[in-house]
């Protein structure tokens, strides 16, 4: 099996506090891998480490076999690792269209850019209707669509999704998971962080459980979903 992303012994800290304490994880080409864990477990920290926003304190990250540990974030993005950050982080003062243009800034030419834009707008008709609207005025769900659309404008070879359903109304949560399922069907490789463990484990080929900066359990999605500890801690079981 070829792994698109290979992480080994990755450590990340904020000054003196070690938030991620040496984790191994692999994301095979074409699969959806999910990372679940309680608040403060280190999921966002891991994602920020993978996208280069945070410098690693140790360990290695390989993308298609190339060492990208501590490569600058813009280079990682240009390699095709695109992150939808926690809390969406759309450019609130810019229009929807400008946000999409920023996502597609690295497209090789205008033709390719237009092709990507067409596909994104087809996938998100709501964005099409609001192209000239200021992004900060969109609803939370629409902003999440925009954040996803913006990442897709980068033609991601690996999509890093940090809690895409956070704080959204049930209808939007459903829509987000439907989109993730579509992307999976189209062959997009995804690393998904979710609080909504139930839905995430249903869609994931493989899952990791993160507790206080360490991977404590991993395995195929379905098996993790049946694990009694996971059921008790994350799936609201009794």
């Amino acid at each position: 099996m070829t792994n698109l992303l290979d992480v080994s012994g990755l450590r990340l800290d904020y000054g003196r506090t070690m938030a991620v304490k040496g984790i191994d994880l692999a994301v095979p080409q074409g699969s959806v891998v999910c990372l679940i864990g309680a608040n403060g477990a280190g999921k966002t920290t891991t994602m920020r480490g993978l996208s280069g926003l945070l410098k690693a304190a140790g360990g290695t990250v390989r993308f298609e076999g190339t060492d990208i540990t501590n490569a600058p974030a813009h280079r990682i993005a240009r390699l095709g690792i695109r992150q939808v950050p926690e809390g969406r982080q759309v450019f609130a003062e810019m229009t929807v269209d400008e946000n999409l243009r920023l996502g597609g800034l690295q497209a090789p030419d205008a033709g390719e850019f237009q092709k990507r834009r067409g596909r994104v707008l087809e996938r998100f008709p709501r964005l099409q209707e609001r192209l000239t609207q200021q992004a900060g005025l969109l609803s939370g769900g629409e902003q999440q669509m925009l954040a996803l659309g913006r990442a897709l404008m980068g033609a991601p070879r690996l999509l890093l999704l940090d809690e895409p359903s956070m704080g959204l109304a049930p209808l939007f949560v459903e829509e987000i998971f439907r989109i993730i399922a579509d992307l999976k069907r189209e062959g997009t490789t995804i690393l998904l962080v979710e609080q909504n463990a139930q839905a995430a484990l249903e869609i994931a080929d493989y899952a990791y459980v993160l507790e206080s900066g360490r991977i404590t359990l991993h395995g195929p999605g379905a098996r993790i979903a049946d694990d009694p500890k996971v059921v008790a801690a994350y799936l609201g079981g009794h």
Partner: protein
Amino acid sequence: MLSQQLVNGLVLGSTYALFALGFTLIFGVLRVINLTYGFYFSVGAFVALWLARSLGASIWIALPLGSLAAGLVAVVIDGILLTRLRRTKAGELPSLMVTLGAVLALYALMAALIGTEIQRFPFGFVGSTALEFAGVRVSLVQMLIVGTAFVMVAVLFLLLQYTRLGLMIRALAENEDAARLMGINVDATVVAVSFLSGLLGGAAGVLIGLNFNAIQPFMGEAMMLRGFAVIIIGGLGDIRGALVAGILLGVLEVLTAGYLSSNAKEAVGFAILVLTLWFRPVGLFGRAQVKRA
């Protein structure tokens, strides 16, 4: 009389606006207060002066090259002073201290090299012709100043609004991490911002030098006080605000000098500054709460 004062005020105000624009641009994007900015103003004026006096350059050569030189100096000095502050997100106060120390050293160096006496452009550098409409005299220098300021402001607007670089600069100003996730090279974009701000500051220096025909190393210092007043009155980092406040300040200064006394004119900026901070601390155009962590 009044309409003549208004024209003179508009001319002065347009250089203030140009100057403040570069200052607010660098603050808006980098979130640092860059006191060395006033030095770029002096650099622009002196390079233009040197070109005019030593090489006999015309204003059409001296103005662009003076501005360009100031832009390049800004890239180097900002690169040395601000890179670390920016990377460690040091914030306003450390950037204030570092750039204050640096700018004092830079002025002292400049004064040591070229002296502190006031220097002037060669006679007839810009023709002394003037137009008169209804008793209002507008000199060639004044037209040149307003025209240059207008063109530069318009070009900056178009650049920020419609070009790829402008899009990247605005993205960086709004959310640095998100900008990096778009594949934007922050360091390279910052170099472009430093260059643009130095260019604006340098051009303002040449224009003010022309307006008063008096050039001296510390001219940037006096200008910085106005620059501060203008960007605070206009709202920190706000481009429209800097424009309006710059022109307003120029007009009020000229009116004060004309109708009260020319000594009182220095106080005008600070009077409006205090009133602004009292009644509208976010500035004329600033918004109350910026959505930024």
